């Protein structure tokens, strides 16, 4: 496709985050797309899972109906009402396909919409605002999700156009996508962030909804190719899922043979996404569990004993 056409391609985006310093080299901007094939129980971005726009309701910011009723006045479906504390409540069964006038009217950002169709041109104009920072730091654009390659046409158009404009790119993938798609994207990006969550397919399926066969297969093919960009493999360490010696050892052993350009990082579980489940009237399935700091550190030791300085430590 020509650059002219690429620039017009649209994607469903739920966030563009500046000054990201933990997702690829240098100072970066992350573009988050909506839609994911997995349903990880610990997911910290629940708004990223479904493809379509979603109305979120943050009661903490609501001024209360005694002070403000802008949303009530504009809802065409009668889906908005007051809860016991006179704060906004969305009746999800009535709320449906509409342009979310309520969120537009809300002055307090209590009602917001996750997800908006945006063109490659629009997204890149935001990304390029920080170009002066990429120059110095070796940073650039990181395309993330959801699973960004689910929106294949948009992702490819964005990466092509970014490359044309000399914006360095990275993609963050869960690997659960057709090989051809992954392969195509890998030819365009400068860095890859690849999630490996568990080597045991049964455990993987129980906590993400899908087995890991395709992910592992994709990884092997990708890492085996010549001219593949550097890959940073990442494992979120999740209590009662993979926060044990055996699980981490298995991943590290799996990675050991892929020497060229494959490094590894463990990410500690955190609960910062919990609130967003409530905004979407969903229940976070992880409950109150927390990751033991010492255990996390010792799991890093384990991985380091196998991978040496290919392990990127986070403490």
């Amino acid at each position, binding site marked *: 496709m020509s650059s002219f056409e690429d620039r017009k391609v649209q994607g469903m985006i739920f966030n563009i*985050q*500046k*000054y*990201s*310093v*933990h*997702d690829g080299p*240098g*100072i970066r901007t992350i573009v*988050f797309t909506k839609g994911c094939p997995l349903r*990880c129980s*610990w*997911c*910290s*971005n629940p708004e*990223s899972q479904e493809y379509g726009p979603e109305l979120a309701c943050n009661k903490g910011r609501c*001024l209360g109906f005694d*002070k*403000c009723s*802008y949303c009530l006045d504009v809802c065409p479906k009668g889906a908005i009402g007051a809860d016991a504390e006179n704060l906004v409540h969305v009746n999800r069964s009535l709320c449906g396909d509409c342009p979310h006038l309520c969120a537009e009217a809300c*002055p*307090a*950002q209590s009602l917001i919409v996750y997800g908006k169709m945006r063109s490659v041109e629009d997204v890149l104009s935001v990304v390029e*605002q*920080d170009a*002066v*920072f990429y*120059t*110095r*730091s*070796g*940073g650039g654009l990181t395309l*993330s*999700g*959801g*699973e960004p390659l689910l929106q294949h046409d948009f992702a490819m158009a964005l990466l092509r156009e970014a490359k044309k404009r000399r914006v360095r790119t990275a993609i*963050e993938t*869960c690997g659960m996508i057709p090989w051809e798609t992954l392969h195509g994207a890998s030819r365009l990006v400068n860095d890859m962030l690849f*999630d490996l969550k568990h080597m045991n397919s049964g455990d993987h399926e129980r906590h993400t909804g899908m087995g890991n066969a395709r992910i592992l297969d994709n990884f092997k093919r990708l890492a085996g190719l010549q001219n593949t960009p550097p890959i940073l493999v*990442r494992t*979120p360490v999740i209590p009662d899922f993979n926060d044990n010696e055996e699980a981490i050892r298995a991943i590290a052993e799996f990675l050991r043979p892929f020497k060229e350009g494959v490094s590894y990082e463990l*990410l*500690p579980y*955190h609960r*910062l*996404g919990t609130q967003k489940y409530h905004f979407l009237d969903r229940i976070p399935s992880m409950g109150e569990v927390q*990751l033991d*700091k010492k255990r*996390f550190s010792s799991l890093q030791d384990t991985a380091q004993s196998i991978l040496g300085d290919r392990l990127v*430590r*986070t*403490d």
Partner: protein
Amino acid sequence: MYDYAGCDCVSPQEQRLLESIEGKENMFRQTHPRVFKMLERFDGQKPRIDVERALYFTQSMKETEGQPLPLRWAKALMHIAQNITVYVQEDQLLLGRAGCDGRYGILYPELDGDFLDIAVRDLPTRSQSPATITEEDAKLVIEEVAPYWKGKTYHEALSKAFPPEVHKLTYDDPEGLISRFIVNETSSFRSSLQWVHDYEKILKRGFNGIRREAEEKLAALDPMSPVDNCEKKPFLEAIVIVCEAIVLWARRHAELAYQMAEKEKDPIRRAELQRMAEIAEHVPGEPARNFYEAVQSQWFTQMFSRLEQKTGTTISNGRMDQYFYPYYISDMNEGRITEEQAMELLECMWVGMAEFIDMYISPTGGAFNEGYAHWEAVTVGGQTPEGYDATNELTHLILKSKREFPLHYPDLAARIHSRSPESYLWDVAETIKDGSGFPKIINDEEIVPLYVSKGATFEEALDYAVSGCTEARMPNRDTYTSGGAYINFAAAVEMVLRNGRMKKYGDQVLGVETGDPCSFASWEDFWEAYKAQHILFMKTAFIQQYIIIQLRARHFAQPLGSAMHDLCMKHCVDLHQPRIPEGIDLGYFEYMGLGTVVDSLAAIKKLVFEEKRLTMRQVLDAIDANFEGHENVQALLRSAPCYGNNDPYADAIGRDIDRISVEFGKAYSKELGIHNDVRYVPFTSHVPFGKVVSATPNGRTEWFSLSDGSSASHGADVNGPTAVLLSNYNTKNMGMRERAARMLNIKFTPKCVEGDQGTEKLVSFMRTLCDLKLWHVQFNVIRKETLIAAQKDPAKYRNLIVRIAGYSAYFVDLSPDLQNDLIARTEHDNM
């Protein structure tokens, strides 16, 4: 995808605090035993007022009435040098202080003598920067000092000299003691603007060298010339006297050290005292011969300078890693000193700085400089006068000391430029990450070309030293010392909304009666009304400055500072005179509340005039009610574009506002004979200035602090730190030269700069700041939780150091208002 977020991460400073709460010893105590011992002696002490300087100064001034001012000042310094108590402190390796043991402050009755009697009674109990005074000393002030100065001080003369229309925007009382906090003059609570001496000259030539120069010039005067007789002769005599005075003062220290050495039983300390005495006999009269002598010579010079006058923000220290370097490296090469010994000497100096408290007696001065503010700016890094990188081993040693020395002294400034070595920037970044807010970053790429455009040579501009909070001085070319106006432009917005009035001051018309804002048909009408208020404030500030410049020379002289200045010596003119041939007068006025004003105007423009989601009446009603019952209007106003987000809508307004300031400066600076340029550096004054401004259209509630410097309004910068930098860049009028410093505060969580990766990214961040030619940035690396905990439990957190406004202070020394202001600053993370 899974976000990156880690375990709890704290800065090294927070770690040390947590350890001290657990009762563990500071990890650096072992390697710095001497300075820790000295520090423990005054830890947590409230400063005491020492009245000797005020007393001897006053005694001498009584005797010399009618004589030329520089001469009177020199004689007063000689009287002080002869009589003031000299001290040799336990464990200390350096000699020279301006008052008693421990934390102390001294008085400058030439500034505030007329109300000192009242002030000394209030000092111990006032909320901002309190101090103690003995009953005996208070009596001396009340009976022997204060009465002489009634009717003679500068601020009394100034208050009388202002025309009524200027007076009413400046002061809230007829005597001019209480500020209006609208167009605030700052020339009366300090003897001068920030200043930095050419210390190198003293190290190389000594005061005896300067004295001889003055004597030769005296001998060469035209005996028939009236100018030579009336102007140059007394000036040069003053130089001779002041050079003799400082040498005499040093020798009195030498004598005392000899006496104590004789009595000393410990042979190690006896040898130390012996050496201290020998050094004090030699410097600062003669040139320094080694590192120890250089440090002692510099210290005598800056302490005597503190006795000479109250330099705004404390006298700065200049490019310490440059002028000490030749002595350091030759001592190191010859094996005469170790790194540890050199660091110990420097830290003995930091201890001396920490004991001296720069007291502000007037209520306005106190509000400007909360938490015992101090900016003795030690400059490191930057470029040589030839334009090469200037960093050296001493640069790194000073940075190391900054990480290990437990107090917020000295104020440290790191100059950076486009070719600053990676090793230097890493060291700077590691120091910032320690979390106490040091060093502040000052950018050569903005300052050097700007100063050249204002008339300096490249050599002079490349050799600038950071002075005070964020300013830069060329110590032999700069000649301007009058404090400039701090202008509350948020009040201009309020005056548009209230037809020239302010809620705080009732029906009194203070500004321009621009009409009922509900009658404005378009945004242009509103903008013109703002502009009218803005220009009225500028006009007032420039009239103030004109009068200030005329008056000050009759009240202040600075023979010691003049002795170190090439141009003063060449032309035989005191540094406080308004016209010094060949000098460059870099003055400035302060734009207070940039974020507050931009956000307010953007909200009005967008919501009232463009989208028409609100009527002007609704906005006014909401503001009158301080948003109570109008929370929806407040929320809507807050949702408008804000400064600090790299939002072209808001930034364009910011640039237009800046444009009014620089254009006015360009038009009328010439009449003042100075560069009177716009600056965005509030110290802590955005808090008291906020206290006179009612609710503003950016959703800010009444009396809350204004936005500070060129930082965004509290919590308004939601797009991260890169956007804050870009907004700064976007709001400058780069095509014009009428700009001075811009102060920028950025708060990072420790997590955001964690590990080598974090350091690397902080370095790139600073390099980009350099590319963007932003003047200054300073960082707080601290968790909000720590600040909140410290506010609740001050006793445990009394050693917590935070960055405020070009300086760092103990968090618990700050007023609750300023503490809240700090907590409310947006914390940048990367979740």
